[in-house]
């Protein structure tokens, strides 16, 4: 539902003038203080934890503050496949979600403009997956894609699928789950920009004898760039950090574990807090670099 974050902030008109007043401090202070205490300070804790070394005579899970930067070397060496897999899966899922969502958002935002009721009904259907538990809808796919499910058995009976085809536990299933779960994050920002698309630009292109494909490529796509940028970020960031879809109890298997699974296992099961912290810092840094480069390249800095 984060789409609101990216779509509304760009449309808000600036008020006539902003006053300077001590009231501002009073309004800001509690919330900002809260974020400093429970967002910034935890990031600092995470950074400090990532350099911790095992306590000399301590049990498992006991660490003391140090500057053991080798933690980073160790986790990258140990979990390189998981790190690459996370960004690879997230990238593929983002591209698939974009390809899936663009025509859908185009129809709802452009073609259905004449029927506002139909438009809002379709939008409700797009966000409907949000209303059912994330974990349950992922499990539903697990059951539908399992070898015994009626979908798979009937496809196999019809010879539309190889008899030894197998989905759950494969990268295919994980990427499928990531794509499905984050489609609404892609469709909604696309819809908000396409809904405001001025059709006269398209008409102008047609009048100048541009082929429909060129009109799409040179007019529609550039004008919907803010939606594409917001949608891809809103899909990519949670997908790269997700560990539900890749979990063994859900759509994944032993060979599909992502960085989130490793962070969870190290933190909550193995109690190797420095490793989990180092992996979190790596994940966050890579995402921040990708986000800032991508936003600069796409030329939509005001989006943030």
């Amino acid at each position, binding site marked *: *539902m984060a789409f*609101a*974050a990216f779509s*509304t*902030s760009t449309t*808000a*008109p600036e*008020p006539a003038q*902003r*006053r300077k007043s001590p009231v*501002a401090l009073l*309004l*800001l202070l509690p*919330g*900002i203080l*809260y*974020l400093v205490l*429970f*967002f910034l300070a*935890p*990031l600092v*804790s*995470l950074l400090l*934890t990532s350099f911790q070394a095992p306590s000399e005579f301590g049990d498992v899970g006991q660490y003391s503050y140090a500057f053991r930067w080798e933690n980073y070397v160790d986790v990258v060496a140990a979990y390189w496949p998981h790190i690459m897999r996370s960004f690879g899966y997230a990238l593929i899922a983002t591209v698939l979600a974009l390809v899936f969502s663009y*025509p*859908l958002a*185009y129809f709802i935002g452009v*073609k259905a403009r004449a029927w506002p*009721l139909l438009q*809002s009904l*379709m939008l409700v*259907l797009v*966000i*409907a997956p*949000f*209303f059912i*538990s994330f*974990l*349950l*809808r*992922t*499990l*539903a*796919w697990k*059951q*539908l894609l399992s070898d015994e499910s009626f979908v798979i058995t009937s496809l196999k009976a019809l010879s539309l699928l190889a008899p030894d085809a197998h989905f759950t536990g494969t990268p295919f299933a994980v990427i499928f789950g990531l794509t*499905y779960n984050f489609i*609404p994050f892609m469709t909604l920002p696309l819809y908000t920009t396409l809904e405001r698309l001025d059709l006269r630009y398209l008409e102008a292109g047609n009048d100048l004898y541009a082929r429909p494909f060129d009109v799409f490529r040179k007019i529609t796509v550039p004008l919907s760039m803010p939606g594409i940028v917001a949608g891809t970020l809103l899909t990519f*960031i949670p997908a*790269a*950090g997700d560990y*539900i879809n890749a979990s063994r*109890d859900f759509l994944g298997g032993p060979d599909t574990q992502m960085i989130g699974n490793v*962070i969870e296992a190290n*933190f909550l099961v193995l109690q190797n807090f420095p490793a989990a*912290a180092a992996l*979190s810092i790596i*994940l*966050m840094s890579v*995402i921040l670099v990708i986000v800032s480069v991508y936003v600069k390249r796409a030329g939509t800095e005001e989006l943030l």
Partner: protein
Amino acid sequence: MKLSLGKWLLPLYTLLALIFLMVPIVYTFVFSFNDSLKSNITWRGFTFDKWLNVCQVQNGSVCEAFGNSILIGVVATVAATTLGTMIAIALVRYRFRFRSQTSLLLFLPMATPEVVLGAGLAAQFLSLGVPKDMFTIILAHTMFCISFVVVTVKARVASLDPALEEAGRDLYGSASQVFARITFPLLLPGILAAALLSFALSFDDFIITNFNSGAVTTFPKYIYVSAARGIPAEANVIASAVFIFALVIVVTAQVSRAAREKRLAKQS
């Protein structure tokens, strides 16, 4: 022939795409009527039992987890909506130093993967020796909801006509009267939308909760923990009921907005 096919391709695709999006929802709903035993994987026949006895003894923990989720959601929503609305008003109405730093601080939690937010808070609670329970979950949920409240309410504050408040002041309304009688009622739709969004985010959150919940079980955590040995159909009942409830709220909001727009269009 070719022309009509092209014309129907996009609507047809949209229809199929929307059906695809509904598949797991329909599945979850249908299996809430399954006469299942312990796990709910194969279809064993239709029954209303699970709906009528959601909180029966052996599965009472589903309802307990659900109750925890509601409680956490309500408290975190009230806290985040209050803090976030105040920030939103300050951002739109006032000039102050460190504005860009403030915006960055508000944007970052939304750009940070949940697993990092969860692990960070857990690392902080660990180093401070804070035991993880209901309270730490509420602290965590409030944190990630604030930014979403700010962006939702900010748009509403920005679209507010300052002339309305000036009129209130001209008529000798005190600052608190102007706020209570004019500003707040006009902001209310935005605040309500932000509160609903917060509640939805909190209610469905699993990743951050998992890192900061200790022994407390929320509804998503219950599903995660039982996923290995099979989810009881009662979980499907609760999820389906929540789904229907949320759908009713959203559809009502849409219909009333459409009606209001129609009325306004008639007046002008």
